[in-house]
């Protein structure tokens, strides 16, 4: 049975197939980027800002960004809050229950780096990217809902650069700096993690 990768590879080589592939990519990325259902992995005070963003003042529905309590319905996991070493296996398990393609937003300083719990703490994971492939980082303690909206727009840009053909991916043009931490090593070596520059699709 031909997988979507085989079809993409065939179209890539066939004359005129690239045009068709580009159109398919555009439609898929448009529809994926505009219905980003989020899993609210809220464990601390950042979840309050995330809840505020969902309601009418900031109104995430107009982005097509709807929080769903079921990981099997979701495209984006928003990790909003402190993740402890005891909580980390549960977060990873929920992430694994989400269907591909899926993305992760690390919301707030605790999810980015451990935040105020970085030093002298025995229980807090120093950044959710220790065990999840994070796509967008939002700094702040907690970040404003506007920052979360900006993260969704940045994530949409990242999605727009994806292709069903692995050869046709483009580097992301994002204003957000890509954090680099020498402690964490090469993300390619971890089975769960995807390359940050190319932000994987269903085949990675």
């Amino acid at each position, binding site marked *: 049975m031909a997988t979507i990768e085989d079809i993409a590879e065939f179209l890539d080589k066939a004359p005129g197939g690239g045009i068709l592939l580009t159109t398919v990519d555009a439609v898929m990325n448009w529809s994926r980027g505009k219905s980003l259902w989020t899993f609210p992995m809220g464990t601390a005070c950042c979840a309050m800002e995330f809840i505020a963003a969902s309601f009418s003042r900031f109104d995430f529905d107009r982005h097509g960004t709807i929080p769903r309590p079921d990981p099997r319905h979701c495209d984006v996991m928003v990790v909003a809050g402190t993740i402890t070493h*005891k909580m980390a296996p549960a977060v990873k398990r929920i992430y694994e229950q989400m269907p591909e393609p899926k993305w992760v937003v690390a919301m707030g300083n605790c999810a980015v780096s451990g935040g105020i719990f*970085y030093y*002298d703490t025995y*229980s807090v994971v*120093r950044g959710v990217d220790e065990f999840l492939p994070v796509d967008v980082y939002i700094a702040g303690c907690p970040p404003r809902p506007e920052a979360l909206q900006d993260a969704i727009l940045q994530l949409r840009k990242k999605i727009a650069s994806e292709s069903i053909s692995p050869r046709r991916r483009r580097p992301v043009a994002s204003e957000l700096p890509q954090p680099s931490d020498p402690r964490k090593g090469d993300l390619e070596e971890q089975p769960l993690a995807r390359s940050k520059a190319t932000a994987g699709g269903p085949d990675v």
Partner: protein
Amino acid sequence: MRIEELRERVCAMYPDLCPLFSIEFGDGSIAVPLERVHSAAADLKDMGFDRLGMVTAVDRGDEFEIVYRLQSRDLRAAMFLKAAVPKNDPVVPSMCDLWPAAEWQEREVFDLFGIVFDGHPDLRRILLPEDWSGHPLRKDYADDRIVRRPDYI
């Protein structure tokens, strides 16, 4: 009940411990020897302190200190009951027979300080994972994952 009245009633009950009565945060506080902590708690419960608000412990460096906070609606008073616990043999009588609410609180103290409660019905970790080693609120706790805060921050 005013604090002076509380002091008088405690001093009438324990004349030898009267110098150890002090006022902390506006409430009475009495430090007793460890072997008398359970009987003192029972006496204070009979006096009217029928609610155990909190159990916690402090690492004083050379010894632990176990702290009970007792509250009473009838007396309109609250007080601390403290006892020093030696570090080499940190065993404290459990208060579960007096206040059932002590069960989870004492499990937390056991989890984070490693103080053993004699007579506790189910003494095991409550907050940390079961395979955790060590008791992290002890001052001498060490862990490979802890990043020490540098001096310049």
